[in-house]
């Protein structure tokens, strides 16, 4: 398993975490390259289905990050998102989906170092957990069908 490189998808908000990740880069801080960042206007926009789709499409881990409470560009988007995550996470755990693979965080535009730390620790944790095969197994049939529809 030593060659396993986790695929991490990060759903981040435009105003804080995306700018924070930018700062990590401009500060020349090195961090794990396993993360693919998807930029959203606000954490409130991050639909829970996107997380499920990421897992189905082959992500081993997910980072969801945005502005700290009270810092939202739209005043309350992150508060709404937080409520949704609390409920969603509880439901996922009840259904046996591995919530340890989803890292939620608040990273402000000034926290370049924190972003690097979040990504590095998430990559390390997912490396430990291994590829998320059990979820993708449930998706197999789906992939097969789509192949037939689009290629055949």
């Amino acid at each position, binding site marked *: 398993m030593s060659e396993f490189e986790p695929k991490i998808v990060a759903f981040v908000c435009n105003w804080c975490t995306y700018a924070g990740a930018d700062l990590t880069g401009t500060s020349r801080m090195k961090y794990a390259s396993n993360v693919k960042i998807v930029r959203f206007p606000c954490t409130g926009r991050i639909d829970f289905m996107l997380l499920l789709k990421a897992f189905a499409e082959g992500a081993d881990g997910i980072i969801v990050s945005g502005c700290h409470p009270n810092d939202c560009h739209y005043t309350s988007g992150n508060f*709404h998102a937080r*409520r949704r995550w*609390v409920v969603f996470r509880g*439901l996922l755990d009840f259904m046996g989906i591995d919530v340890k693979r989803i890292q939620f965080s608040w990273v402000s535009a000034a926290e370049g170092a924190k972003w690097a730390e979040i990504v590095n620790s998430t990559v390390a944790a997912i490396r430990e957990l291994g590829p998320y095969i059990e979820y993708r197994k449930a998706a197999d049939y789906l992939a097969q069908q789509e192949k037939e529809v689009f290629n055949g």
Partner: protein
Amino acid sequence: MDELRKKATELLQSGDVQMVIGYEKGTKGPRPCFISVPEEAHKLIFDEQCTGNLAVYLTHKDLIAGQKVAITASYFALRSILRLFTENQLQADRLVVLTVSVDKQLIVFTAVDDIAAYLQSAPVPKREDDAALIARLEAISREERWAFWTEELSKCFKCYACRAACPMCYCNKCIVEENRPQWIQPWASTLANVEWHINRAMHMTGRCSDCGACGAACPLGLPIHLLTRRIVQEVQENFGIGANEAVQKDNVLSTFKPEDKENFIR
């Protein structure tokens, strides 16, 4: 029960309501019936077996068709009715809500607030089977839970009986009929089924009356009502909003408190 029939006859005779939605004797258990002439009111029954959630019919526009109706509501149906009022789906002057209390008294609700007060005082019906299954699921490991749910949900063939039985599923266009983007694949496969049931449960946040109609309607007997029950539990534990209070307030997910607590965001 005689009181209930008398009241229904009276309401229909006086022309105060044009239809009574209630239960009648079925082959196995009580079944819903729709009575529009006073002569048929003798068919009505109401006992502890009448657990189906009749509130689901109140949002059927083709059935109600502008009529004033009376409904015999079980404990959970009362919760649903309150919630439908909160979501502006019902008009208080077009609806008569009846129930029979545990001590066999007919109650006619005159105000929406009375329903809320009754729910606070009446005992919540117990469901031991569900409690036992939840306890079992919480005791096993996460991997075993995933195995349990994928096994159960792989049987689902997406008949959407759960949606049809739910009083809160009154959207004209459901997310599963949405195809730009196609969030949930229309065919029945394990993952598409898991996604559908996650969506269904999430959309019930703060709205679910925990009546269990979805699970009871499932032709395969899948325990899908446990998912919505889990949501009810999460809302109670994290936001301090109980199922009886949730129905009188704003939507749980479209409001927030700055002091909401969580323990997983870094």
